[in-house]
């Protein structure tokens, strides 16, 4: 397991989920999807539980968390009610699971969350609220221009915005490094304040790998 956590971060909470519980949640969703009970795309996680359980210890329950289309684990670990997550999934909105309490937002557009998270962090600073904002992003998103603009702005203005790069070497099924003609993994050492981990896909980009007739 490759996981880099900056040394200055402090543990904020005890995480209430085990690896087994997280996998069970996704496994049940996969079963319902295979039974054609979910009439929208699902993006399942598997294999990054240990990394996420460690990372979420640093995330306070009152912090804001931003995620992408693959967001079930992040939502669960941030304390979003599992029934609310399921409601989104069964409505076909798995890619945009969100919650107002705790603060959780996801978008199905690459890099879409980054400027929004920046604005939340900027507002926190204006309101003198010291809570953190956390952005989970993939290795392709970390290569975008938007990421570099948001990262630069947040650092220059000392905003409490943290980034977690989740590197599975893929953007959908496209190898990120080949499209950029670069070394295999995201060069996280250029960004020592970023949390970074690697994992391999278990499920396909979306769905379960089985042919489902709706």
């Amino acid at each position, binding site marked *: 397991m490759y996981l880099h956590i900056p040394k200055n971060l402090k543990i904020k909470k005890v995480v209430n989920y085990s690896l087994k519980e997280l996998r069970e949640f996704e496994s049940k969703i996969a079963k319902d999807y295979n039974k054609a009970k979910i009439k929208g795309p699902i993006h399942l996680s598997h294999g990054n539980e240990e990394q996420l359980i460690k990372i979420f210890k640093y995330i306070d329950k009152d912090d*804001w968390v931003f995620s992408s289309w693959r967001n079930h684990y992040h939502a669960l670990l941030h304390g979003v009610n599992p029934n609310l997550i399921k409601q989104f999934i069964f409505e076909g909105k798995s890619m*945009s699971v969100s919650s107002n309490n705790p603060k959780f937002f996801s978008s199905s557009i690459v890099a879409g969350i980054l400027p*929004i*998270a*920046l*604005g*939340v962090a900027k*507002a926190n600073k204006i309101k003198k609220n010291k809570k953190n904002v956390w952005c989970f992003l993939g290795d392709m998103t970390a290569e975008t221009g938007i990421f570099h603009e948001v990262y630069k*702005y947040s650092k220059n203005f000392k905003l409490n915005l943290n980034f977690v790069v989740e590197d599975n070497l893929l953007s959908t099924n496209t190898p990120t490094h080949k499209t950029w003609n670069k070394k295999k993994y995201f060069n996280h050492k250029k960004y020592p304040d970023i949390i970074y981990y690697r994992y391999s896909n278990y499920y396909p980009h979306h769905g379960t790998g089985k042919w489902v007739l709706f």
Partner: protein
Amino acid sequence: MSNYYKEVEKSMKFLARNKGTIFLGQSVIYSGNLIYKTLTKVKNSKKIELPVFEEVQLGMSLGMAMNGLFPVTCFPRFDFLLCAMNQLINHADKIKLITNNQYSPQMIIRVLVGAKKPLNGGEQHTQNYVNVIKRMLKTIVVWDLKDEKKILSSYKKAFKNKKINLMVEYSQSY
């Protein structure tokens, strides 16, 4: 100064009187375009001068709105707002729908249609996309501010309607 300009200026003063409003964009503090002129009577402490990064600007404004502020986010030309279409169409316009109304932020997006007289800014500085954009939006309210008599009342309604509003102004009328 024209009545049109005076009405816009009054509208900005009205918005600035409200505690949560914050004006952001390029040339809100430093001169450079008509947006600046309309904000000269707004305190600099209510303004954030931004880099040129339109998509980030609109998303950032949305995030500030989600976190309880009332952004008045300014784009000096419609042509420039096109660079922020992902945040405008995919995020700001869809946020209530994709979150099942858990997030219902309020903000004002100001955009100016560039003038053609006495100087013609050319193809990339003078386009008016108001009719096209109305067709693309599901939840954002579009205000086509052609009539100077309706500018202040429109801004007042936009401030109170608890929605995201796109206010289209006309540089030619300034």
